[in-house]
């Protein structure tokens, strides 16, 4: 059973009287794309926060590749192969797109106690950064300040940065949030292209994205996982339809 890349057992987190995460169990295998859906306030971002290391669970455990990472600091998780994108775009606004990705690469390429050489001139950083920007269709915008990129472009930049560390597991918090139809389609297509080579946990509201990408889906309601299964199984699940999908999903 422990061929799972990520194993979450009985995870609990409360904020005062509010049970944001209530005995959550989750197992994601290598190469799988696993979606987490649920109504607003269900605790999806809190769950991602605990997986990424920003929040400490009250109890329960998180194992990544067999190692207990429950209390491991965020930056160390990145070096274990766990990478995330943020729901509310969180890039370096006064760095260019290229510098954003270049820095994400720098974090994993050698050490950063270098005081002399301008980082801008380091090909070992900028070449792979450009490659990643190409992958997300941003290479023409490489020198634009992140603050001046369109919203959708910033979301693409987020993904590029998440990929910079060549992660084994990608935590994507609402990757298509706030994107128009065309942009969403492109992003979904891009993520579909990643399937298989990367393991992904996807938190999403956009049902098109979810059903197009997910191998398995977990449904989170009031901090509890009420159902886990393939898209077909979830669609057919009566409890899920009542709680979330609506009767005509």
């Amino acid at each position: 059973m422990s061929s799972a890349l990520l194993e979450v057992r009985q995870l609990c987190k409360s904020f005062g009287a509010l049970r944001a995460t209530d005995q959550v169990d989750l197992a994601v295998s290598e190469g799988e794309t696993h979606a987490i859906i649920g109504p607003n306030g269900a605790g999806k971002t809190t769950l991602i926060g605990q997986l990424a290391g920003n929040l400490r669970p009250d109890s329960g455990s998180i194992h990544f590749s067999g190692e207990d990472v429950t209390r491991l600091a965020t930056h160390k998780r990145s070096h274990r192969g766990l990478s995330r994108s943020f729901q509310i775009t969180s890039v370096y606004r006064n760095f260019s797109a290229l510098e954003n990705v270049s820095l994400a690469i720098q974090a994993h390429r050698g050490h950063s106690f270098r005081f002399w050489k301008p980082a801008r001139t380091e090909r070992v950083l900028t070449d792979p950064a450009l490659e990643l920007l190409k992958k997300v269709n941003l290479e023409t915008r490489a020198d634009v300040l992140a603050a001046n990129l369109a919203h959708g472009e910033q979301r693409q930049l987020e993904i590029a940065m998440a990929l910079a560390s060549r992660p084994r597991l990608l935590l994507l918090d609402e990757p298509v949030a706030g994107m128009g139809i065309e942009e969403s389609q492109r992003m979904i297509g891009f993520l579909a292209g990643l399937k298989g080579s990367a393991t992904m946990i996807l938190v999403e509201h956009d049902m098109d994205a979810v059903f197009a990408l997910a191998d398995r889906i977990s449904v989170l309601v009031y901090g509890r996982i009420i159902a886990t299964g393939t898209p077909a199984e979830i669609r057919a699940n009566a409890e899920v339809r009542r709680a979330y999908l609506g009767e005509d999903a």
Partner: protein
Amino acid sequence: MPAPRTLVLFALLAVLAAVPPLAAAFNEPFYLDLFRRIMIFSIAALSLNLILGYGGMVSFGHAAYLGIGAYSVGILAFYDITSGWLQWPLAIGASAILAAAIGAVSIRTSGIYFIMITLAFTQMLYYFGISLEEFGGDDGMRLKAKSDFSGLIDLNDPTAFYYLVLALLVVLLWLVHRIVNSRFGRVIRAAHSNEARTRAIGLSPYPYRLAAFVIAGAICGLAGALLVNHTAYLTPDFMNWTRSGELMFMVILGGIATTSGPLLGAAALLLLEDWLQGSDLLPKDWVRDHWQLYLGLVLILVVVFAKRGLAGLFAGRHE
């Protein structure tokens, strides 16, 4: 064609280089003194700019390192160790060590806590300085002898000293410029810009911030060594928190996170102070005797209305 801001910087440096001959020509040695003072404070300000301007670390205790540098030189001179080759590295080293100690505790905190803690530690050093009775305590004491560089340069010669400070200023401006654009500098700026993002990509801000804090402290220690040789007097007031406030003001006024900012800010503040205190254009009773009142008002107005500082007037793209 270099950016407008670079041109301004070179112009400023050229002006500074021209001051000694001009001062001699017009027989106004006072200006030699004033501009040398401006340059020394520029060095202190540029060290603060590294951590505050680029790193967002609002250290209210930076004047402590001016004091440590000054006292290192002053105390050694008191015991007749006047070799600058010994004193100045010690001043820098002592400042670095204390910065490491203070930083190790303070940098674990952030925001308002960090401000208060750095302030509190500086005051601690200030009170410690006052308690050192053999070195003048509250009143301070005269510097026994200026630092001696075995004939290479004579600090008693105002012009030679002036050009030494100018040379050091140029070197340090360049050094900090390289640091800011290096991998290290990028991490510092990134951690300031978006700390959560920085952790997410795999970097913990703490070690880098601590290193920056130590570097800034060391540079400021050198400024302290220069300052005590300049004033020929040693006093705990070098470490007073109002001095820290002045340094911060210089950084803001000049424009944070710019290369020429600290220089512009130091010049502007010191020239303003000098003008308020000494200008014949201003009434003595109402203005000159109480110049700090007007300085305070200027400070408030600048903070409220002139966010980008003087360097912002020559603004180009963000650096």
